[in-house]
């Protein structure tokens, strides 16, 4: 029984990381109607930023703050000076350009840090395990669950209780109407893109002590984010949260039954959701 409980907790932690990746994808899609295939590359950049900063300063907390901010600024610059030119072109070409961008970022990472993955140690405070009676659990993973839960709450407050969040939600309904009301929609675009990149970078930093930084992790993260979004429903915060946790737990729990098949089960779950509820668990028709 303990084993499954541990796997559920592991799944919760991993699922929250999937949520952070997917929620950026989903809010960018919601307002800009644009799927960013370079989103996995932002996650990759987050992990390597964590490696670089932690390697240089020996301080994980500095990496946790600076890494995502750097990725967010990168995303902001990229949107402002490069991707914003693409809003008029058909989706297909946006996908291809961002796919090209993802390839470029991946190969740059190999050039700079080499093709072999880099391990990253968790911060000093959270090394080792915590004992609850006869139940031991790694401290870092507990921190991960707690921290991401707070983060999800903060993000929910940002989207539901601030002016920016209101504009963003309104923009998801109709960008034209929002810009007619006198809001500079292009600034909202840049902000949202930067926020999405920041969250993906944050996911990369948080995942780094568990999974390390490896140059080919981007496409995997992207595909998982797609599965999360398909399972949860595209364009909704709650969908990304539910989808992320479901995918994380399915993957973790299945890995103790059938380790090779854990990854397959995620996609089986996705196929079932598509067949039974084509718009996702929480998606609107």
């Amino acid at each position, binding site marked *: 029984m303990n084993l499954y409980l541990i796997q559920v907790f592991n799944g919760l932690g991993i699922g929250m990381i999937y949520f952070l990746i997917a929620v950026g994808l989903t809010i960018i899609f919601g307002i800009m109607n644009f799927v960013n295939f370079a989103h996995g590359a932002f996650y990759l950049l987050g992990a390597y930023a964590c490696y670089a900063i932690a390697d240089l300063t020996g301080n994980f907390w500095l990496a946790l703050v600076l890494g995502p901010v750097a990725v967010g600024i990168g995303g902001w610059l990229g949107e402002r000076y490069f991707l914003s030119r693409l809003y008029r072109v058909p*989706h297909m070409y946006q996908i291809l350009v961002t796919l090209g961008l993802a390839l470029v970022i991946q190969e740059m990472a190999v050039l700079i840090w080499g093709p072999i993955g880099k391990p990253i140690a968790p911060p000093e405070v959270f090394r080792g395990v915590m004992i609850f009676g006869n139940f031991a659990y790694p401290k870092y993973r507990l921190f991960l669950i707690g921290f991401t839960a707070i983060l999800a709450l903060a993000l929910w407050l940002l989207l539901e209780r601030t002016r920016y969040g209101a504009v963003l939600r309104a923009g998801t309904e109709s960008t034209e109407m929002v810009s007619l009301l006198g809001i500079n929609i292009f600034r909202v675009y840049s902000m949202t893109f930067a926020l999405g990149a920041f969250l993906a970078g944050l996911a990369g930093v948080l995942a780094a002590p568990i999974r390390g930084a490896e140059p080919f992790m981007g496409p995997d993260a992207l595909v998982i984010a797609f599965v999360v979004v398909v399972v949860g429903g595209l364009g909704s915060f709650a969908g990304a949260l539910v989808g992320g946790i479901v995918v994380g737990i399915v993957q973790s729990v299945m890995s103790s039954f059938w380790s090779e098949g854990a990854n397959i089960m995620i996609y089986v779950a996705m196929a079932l959701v598509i067949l039974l509820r084509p718009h996702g668990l929480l998606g609107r028709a």
Partner: protein
Amino acid sequence: MRRRPLLLEPTFLASIVVVLILPVVLPSVAMATEALIFVIASLGCTLLLGYVGLLSFGQAIFFGVGAYACGLALIHLGASAWGGLLAAAVISLAAGLVVGGLVTQRRGIYFVMLTLACSQMFYFIAYAMEDITGGDNGLLNVPRPPLLVFETTLLTLRTPMSFYTFAAIVFLCIYLFLQRLVSSPFGSALVAVRENEDRALAMGYNTRLFKIAAFAISAVVTGIAGALYALFLNFAPLSNIEVSMGERIIIMTILGGTGSLFGSVLGGTFYVLLGNLLSAIWPRWLLVLGLILIVVASYLRGGLLSGVNWIVEKGRGWGILRSFAVRAWSATFRIRTPPRAQP
């Protein structure tokens, strides 16, 4: 309008010319064979992307499944080369129907995401079924039996040139078939789905069935390419079914241009040539490829096909001979508008 006889279709004649000159122009016959194999894979993608407007990131599924089916048929059933191709076609048809049935549940961006997810699923399945597919090591020792027609050896397939001839025959047959398909009423219905799916639906076409059919045909074509690749390498690596293979197939299709089937011929050849030349100099050549993809998708949406067309257009009025050549060229490779994204 009277239809030209299929065999005299200008792009088909041009394909014959390409098949004849490739082994001479490219550095090796093996590279020419590889180019033709990827041209076939890209043809499958052009059918989907250019004619139905479906951007599928799942082409690697069929490329990989075709390679495994062919390899397994040859190893375990002792099938001939034709038998291998047939096995690949049948199994990829089945895979195409299953995957197509699932992914066409949704349209637009969801479709793209679903194809990518399915591709990853098939990769993990191939990886997990180590007993059958060889897992990470790939399916080793795929034989290459001589090609028989009525008990007589047509091609030994032992020399590179012999195998190239085999690949060329398969390529020309597939090209003719697809050319016939896209100029048929079925092809027009596919274009109607691309241009406006809701309207086609309103006119009484079951658009989902058309999409599944196109998906299945594309799967068969791609599966045959995979089978040829397995025969070519004597080996079916796991990388055949990786997501990145699907991306490669899309990239070469886009590079060539999706306005006509002939775009695939340009794109596949260009990609294989570029890949072989660059990877020999610099292992990180994908960086260059990413940049090329960005440039093509931003500025040259018709791909190489439209680039060639533009050069020819500029040459107009340089004497009668030139203008005759120009007419012939533009009549042959006239570019349709690039496919629109779905709503």
